[in-house]
């Protein structure tokens, strides 16, 4: 397959800005820790000044004044002390930094995860799960360097050079002037070069992840490539795509590395100029070696914070990129229509759809002006082609999304006026691929009602015809389901989901394709279980399988988002004339 590039993922200045504002606001919450980081770094800077001063003085003693080892011994001891102090402060600084990072990450992740869950499917329509998972896990981790590297370096780039300049000027004001005037060129050139390369750089990162995806896509599809004799051909595509990527990326990097080059260039030229000035003043005897050497030692230190700021640029980019995904999610308003307060009815409800529409913004799978009645205690099937809107209707009924127009009445109450928690406790929903945690069978069974007793569990398992296969599991109810469902077949997992719906003691049960992909025998077991579970409840089951349709009372057929006729099951099946 060719690689499809999406060139529109460049940076958007406005989004970039608001992401950075959010980052600043978050930084405000750990202001104390950040100030501590900057303060400690400044103290380390002060120790660097002392270190340079002592070293320079020692050289003055030995080289110029010809003093013996005994005179530098106390200075060496002092250097050792300063090294210990610097080491201590550095450790404290890093520990402080780790604490700040931990605090931000924990707070943001917790808030973000709860927000995503609170938004729910109604608030998240259009978001794929994969990127959301990435954002909650890796995305939050990627915020760390912004707070722990970039922000402190930003303040230090302002504080330390100034501090160093103040101590340099009394010793050698000419060198001070050189430093003062060369310093502004560094950020200036970096910004000029950085601006141009940032956009390219970002696009390159996007391309990199797409290229990684390209290889994985091919590896996952290897059986298909083999079947069509395309594996050898694709191997050459892999080589070509990688080489094209290398050439394109190197073109970008040649420009991107220029900013680091400029920075080094000015720092080096500045230091060399200072060395020359000091050298000649020493030669003419205008300056002592102690003062001169001190200034020479301080010159690279003067540029260091600016260089570090340049190096932390990547940390900033990463943090902003993560914030661009996180901040809009946190700022997204919660979906409307979930603030009802009326308690849900306790018996099996009667449901009435009145002119319900939900169009997904015009894409396929919506429903239009649906009128449908589900009498209390009835069992109704929803049939129709894939994409006709069956699942959409079911999701509206359980209240995962709200109709764009029309309303759904539950015993005469509009669904939006019911208290969401109360309504949810009355219903059970078994989607096409039921959700199971990797915990034990029991944990999964009790997900909706952690307090259910053993009797209820046994009745539920028997009703769902799940007791036999569960007793065959190595640890019965306490067998962990694991990633792959502990080797349970599709039909067995469906029956487990049915048992869970039974445990909930819901009065409304909605099932989406409970028998898709099952063989006839498994389908029969599920259908019988369905009939037992349905007793005393209002049930809506989506299916187009004839055996399933024959075990319900009434069938409503959906065509293109609209409900046609509601027929008795036998009537519907005789019209469908599926060869059995």
């Amino acid at each position, binding site marked *: 397959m060719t690689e*499809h590039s999406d060139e529109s993922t460049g940076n958007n200045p406005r989004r970039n800005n608001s992401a950075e504002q959010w980052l600043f606001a978050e930084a405000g919450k750990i202001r104390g820790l950040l100030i501590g980081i900057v303060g400690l770094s400044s103290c380390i800077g002060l120790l660097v000044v002392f270190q340079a001063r002592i*070293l320079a003085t020692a050289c003055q003693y030995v*080289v*110029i004044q010809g003093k013996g080892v005994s005179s530098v*011994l106390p200075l*060496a001891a002092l250097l*050792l002390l*300063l*090294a210990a102090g*610097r*080491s201590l402060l*550095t*450790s404290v600084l*890093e*520990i402080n930094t*780790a*604490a700040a990072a931990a605090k931000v990450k924990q707070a943001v992740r*917790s808030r973000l995860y709860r927000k995503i*869950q609170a938004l*729910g499917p109604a608030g998240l329509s259009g978001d*794929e*799960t994969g990127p959301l998972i990435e954002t*909650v896990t890796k995305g939050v981790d990627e915020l760390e360097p912004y707070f722990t590297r970039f922000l402190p370096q930003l303040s230090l780039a302002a504080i330390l050079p100034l501090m160093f300049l103040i101590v340099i000027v009394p010793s050698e004001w000419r060198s001070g002037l050189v430093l003062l005037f060369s310093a502004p060129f560094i950020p200036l050139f970096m910004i000029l070069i950085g601006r141009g390369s940032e956009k390219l750089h970002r696009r390159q990162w996007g391309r990199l992840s797409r290229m*990684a995806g390209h*290889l*994985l896509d091919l590896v*996952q*599809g290897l*059986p298909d490539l*083999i*079947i069509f*004799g395309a*594996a050898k051909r694709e191997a050459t595509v892999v080589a070509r795509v*990688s080489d094209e990527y*290398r050439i394109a990326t*190197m073109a970008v990097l*040649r420009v991107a590395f220029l900013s680091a080059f400029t920075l*080094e260039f000015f720092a*080096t030229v500045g230091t*060399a100029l200072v*060395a020359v000035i*000091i*050298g000649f003043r020493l*030669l003419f005897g205008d300056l*002592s070696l102690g003062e001169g050497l001190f200034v020479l030692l301080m010159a690279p230190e003067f540029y260091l914070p600016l260089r570090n700021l340049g190096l932390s640029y990547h940390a900033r980019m990463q943090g902003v990129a993560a914030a661009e995904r996180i901040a809009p999610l946190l700022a997204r308003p919660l979906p409307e229509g979930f603030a009802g307060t009326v308690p849900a009815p306790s018996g099996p409800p009667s449901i009435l759809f009145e002119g319900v529409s939900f169009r997904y913004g015009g894409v396929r799978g919506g429903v239009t002006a649906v009128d449908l009645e589900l009498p209390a205690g009835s069992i109704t099937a929803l049939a*129709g082609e*894939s994409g006709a809107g069956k699942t959409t209707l079911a999701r509206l009924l359980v209240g995962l999304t709200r109709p764009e127009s029309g309303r759904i009445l539950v015993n005469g109450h509009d669904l939006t006026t019911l208290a969401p928690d109360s309504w*949810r406790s009355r219903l059970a*929903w078994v989607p096409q691929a*039921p*959700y*199971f945690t990797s915990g034990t069978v029991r944990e999964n069974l009790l*997900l909706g009602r952690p307090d259910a007793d053993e009797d209820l569990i046994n009745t539920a398992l028997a009703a769902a015809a799940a007791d036999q296969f569960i007793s065959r599991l190595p640890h019965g109810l306490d067998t962990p389901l694991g*990633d792959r469902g502990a080797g349970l077949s*599709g039909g067995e997992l469906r029956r487990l989901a049915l048992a869970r719906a039974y445990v*909930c003691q819901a009065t409304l049960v909605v099932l989406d394709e409970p028998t898709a992909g099952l063989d006839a025998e*498994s389908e029969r077991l599920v259908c019988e279980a369905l009939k037992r579970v349905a007793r005393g409840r209002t049930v809506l089951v989506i299916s*187009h399988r004839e055996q399933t349709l024959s075990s319900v009372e009434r069938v409503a057929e959906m065509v293109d988002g609209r409900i046609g006729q509601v027929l008795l099951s036998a009537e519907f099946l005789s019209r469908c004339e*599926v060869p*059995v």
Partner: protein
Amino acid sequence: MNQLARFLIISRGQWFWMGAGIVLGVLVIFANTLLMAISGWFIASMAVSGSSGAAFNYFFPSASIRFLAIARTVGRYAERLVTHESTFRILSELRVWLFNRFEPLAPACLERYAGGDVTGRLRGDVDALETLYLKIIAPLAVGTLSLLAALVFLLWFSPPSAGVMLLFLLLAGVVLPLLVRRFSEEPGRRSALLAAELRTMVTEGLQGVEELILLGAVERQAAVVDGLSAEVIVEQERLGRINGLSLGGMAFFAGSGVAAVLLAGSMQVASHQIPPPNLVMLLLFSAAIFEAAGLLPSALHLLPAAQESVSRIFELADAPIPVPDNPVSSDLPADGALCFSNVSASYLPGMPVLDNFSLTIPAGGCVVLTGSSGIGKSLLVEILLRFRNYEGSVTVGGIEIRDLPKETLIGMIAAVPQRPHLFNGTIRENILLGSVSADEEQLQQVLKNSCLDQWIAALPLGLETMVGGNGSAVSGGEARRIALARALLKDAPILLLDEPTEGLDCATEREIVSRLNKWFRNGVATTVLVVSHRPACLQLGNSVIHL
């Protein structure tokens, strides 16, 4: 270390670039340290000459300073370009190597890798392999070589200084990193483990968010995620603290190293063993060389995790080929007749699925196999595709398939596997995989036969619609019909269909069955084997066999 050697052998085509990057790295560090050393010696000599009035030739040192300043700046730029160039070159080489290695392993071995989490695991592992040179090998080589060179330099000018620096460089560059590695191993392993667990919980929670909401279990699950997140972060913070102690240790050794050189050098000056300006040179050189020592801890820090990823990949790449290709026959099968006799096979050793199965389909015949799930219907299809081993005999056109070159066999078969994969590209690209040389007319014909024509006509982008990663932008039924179209386009003598109508509604299913039937009966000499438990599909064959 074995893995590193293996890595170097695989990427041997790029040794020139890798070596060049390392040489440049050493040169840059040397230019930098020499720049400081000569500057120090220069101003000390100027001061001595200024105070004593003796003449000093400052042309050579000032020219050296200028040269080194340029060498450092340009060298750094060149080093970054060359190391990245070699990283990307290694990357292309590795990708092709991996892909070629994985090909004979699919699907039997790949599905066992990392407990089935092929995508999640493989991405991270390949990343680790691809940055092995840039993040680990190059810094380790540059750091070690620079330190050795620095010791030689010091030994030349002042053996006592070389002695004390050897001690402090060993402490900073070897002992400290080893200690760090030892202490960070446990939290590193735990944090990786917990991060994977957190990822699983978040995945479960977000994929199951609808049911969690309806079951009223959202808050309970969020609390579990919070707890896991806190555990991960505790380990990450612990790693941060170890890193802090390591940086602190580095600062201490660097500072004390310079103090020790001050004492050693002063003694030599006092006893007139070295000229006084050399003391300044030694001091500045020693302070600067710790930059090279600083390269080692971060590289050693990353090493254990990278080794783990790399050995996982190599383990997979070295897995014995499940179904070897040992052709002994050069005859081409005469036709598409299929014959299974006394075939036994299994997915996992010791759990036989097929036992003494026999079936004959004449060339051009059309058979539907049916039976409950798990009985081995799909296994038969995979045996014919040489994805699985078998006992007994399976022949195509009278020739045993294990004697045929795989390429010849596969060339005769078109198939819709149980779980067809759609590649992240357009619908057209996915269908043309069946035959790159197909013309528009053939394409339209298979679209019609697989009931895709109306759906595609209604799409705004038509055949150019993207199917998304793993076919996420199309429904399951649409994906299956695309896979069917792709198989029909290949137009091979044998057609294998594993549940061709899964996920389709009954109207579309009936339509596909009738269109396929029309096509099969239209004088096409294709041998067709359909595997299905759907009643509608039974009409596809001229005979139905119940397993």
